[in-house]
């Protein structure tokens, strides 16, 4: 059994979205309850987050965007830039704390206090662009984490794997012209699923050309396609890139029971995804991986899927 860090804070529940919004605080309550019931929580090393220093937010997001977001929360607006992005007065602070949680997890891992970590944070991040909130996301937790690894720890090559069922347009855009961060995403085909990006031919721009890779999966498909494509697309890409640290955008909304998508991954399919990614992480990153919660909206299956993912992190034996 390895040392797996677990980021959580009760204040993550204070970002309250409108009644009936799928990205609700009940998601984290369900995940926590699940981890308590199956005894996993006590095996994890708790990591208490602090609000991220704004310097790290600014390394990824436009300062005017950050101010607009803060002002919208202070003013008590019901949403920010789109009706999907439901906010309350506390949302800005909670979003800072979500980023802070990821940064703290990175600190713990880089210090060797933990081998790897899972961040049960919200709001999620992978749709957020430099100056645009989208799809329930405000600050791009994973992207900020990648820049932090580079600027604070001198890591040269960061890998990002995004297995949320939606394409992480924000993360892709932030790193599209950057050859020091490789972004891989597997998701439901953008002709059917939000946000409509992440097509096969989107492979990065300028210096970052070939440092972005997208695998769209057609609706109705599931485990078989994921097995095949992770093997043929993801593994060779990272073998070539040789990342030093891996960050995960971990979304669990591709499960067949999750109405947010038409992808039919099974519980076993998700276990395969976790295992395959960890094999890759062991081979190239000395087991160093921080996994960050993105989507997953069916409260009946989400806790089990997260628990399986965390169990895989715990049982991971990096060589």
């Amino acid at each position, binding site marked *: 059994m390895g040392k797996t860090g677990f980021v959580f804070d009760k204040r993550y529940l204070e970002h309250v979205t409108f009644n009936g919004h*799928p990205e609700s605080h009940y998601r984290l309550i369900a995940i926590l309850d699940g981890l308590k019931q199956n005894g996993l929580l006590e095996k994890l090393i708790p990591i208490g987050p602090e609000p991220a220093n704004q310097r790290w937010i600014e390394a990824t997001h436009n300062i005017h965007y950050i101010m607009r977001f803060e002002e919208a929360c202070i003013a008590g607006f019901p949403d920010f830039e789109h009706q*999907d992005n439901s906010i309350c007065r506390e949302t800005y602070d909670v979003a800072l704390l979500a980023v802070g949680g990821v940064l703290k997890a990175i600190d713990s891992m880089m210090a060797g206090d933990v081998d790897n970590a899972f961040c049960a944070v919200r709001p999620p991040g992978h749709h957020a662009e430099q100056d645009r909130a989208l799809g329930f996301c405000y600050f791009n937790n994973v992207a900020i984490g990648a820049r932090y690894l580079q600027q604070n720890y001198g890591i040269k090559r960061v890998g990002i794997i995004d297995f949320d069922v939606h394409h992480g*347009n924000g993360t892709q855009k932030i790193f599209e012209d950057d050859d020091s961060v490789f972004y891989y995403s597997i998701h439901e085909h953008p*002709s059917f*699923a*939000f946000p*409509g*990006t992440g097509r096969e031919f989107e492979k990065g721009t300028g210096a970052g050309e070939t440092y972005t890779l997208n695998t769209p999966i057609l*609706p109705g498909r599931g485990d078989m396609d994921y097995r095949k494509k992770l093997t043929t697309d993801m593994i060779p890409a990272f073998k070539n890139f040789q990342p030093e640290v891996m960050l995960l955008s971990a979304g669990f909304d591709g499960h067949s029971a999750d*109405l947010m998508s038409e992808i039919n991954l099974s519980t076993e399919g998700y276990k395969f995804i976790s295992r395959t990614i960890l094999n890759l992480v062991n081979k190239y990153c000395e087991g160093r991986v921080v996994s960050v919660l993105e989507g997953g909206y069916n409260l009946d299956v989400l806790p089990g899927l997260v628990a399986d993912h965390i169990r895989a992190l715990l049982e991971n034996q990096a060589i």
Partner: protein
Amino acid sequence: MFVSETMATDLITVRPDTTLKEAKGLMQEKNIRHLPVVDEVGKLLGIVTDRDMRDAQPSSLLDEETYARTYERVMEHRVEEIMSKEPLTISGFYTLQDTLLVMGKKKVGALPVINEDGMLEGIMSTRDLLRAFVNIMGIGEPGTLLCILVQERPGQMKKIVDIITEENVSLGSVMVAKYWDKEKRAVFPYVMTQNVIRIKEKLQAEGFELFDPMSWYLDQLPQKK
């Protein structure tokens, strides 16, 4: 939906006495395949395409020296000698649908747009048309495609639109396609949201079938006879 709103108006044109050499240079430099030919007041006289240019050029099978000599000579000719003198044109009042159909029917890659006096106002290429349809389908903006199977009878679309409206969601576009079962239609609303769970639940509660687009695709595959 009108050509006048979509056509390219930053026109690159030539005069009838422009040499083929200049015209070819212009096409390469601006990365275009169609050059309208106009007179001194901007009246459309014809159009030169890269195909016309290639037809005028000597055969690439000639030996190098003969090719170079012939090429030099050919390139001194004027565009009026090779241009299409009565090209197919459209007016700014044409709709995008007109343009789509006429381009398909006549197999042309670009159409000059002229007014009643024959003056060139713009040009509509397949590239401009593609851009217009990306806009019409709404797919340049973030959204989700719903795939709904409805009975072919009046009032169905209203129910769908009502449900989407109740959820305060904007519509990017709605496509309707034939389905193999003639009693049914496939409806594809593109909704500008990630939050589709409630819409899907309400549609199902109203008795609509959310279908798997892949099964539809497989049903549509030509069957062996």
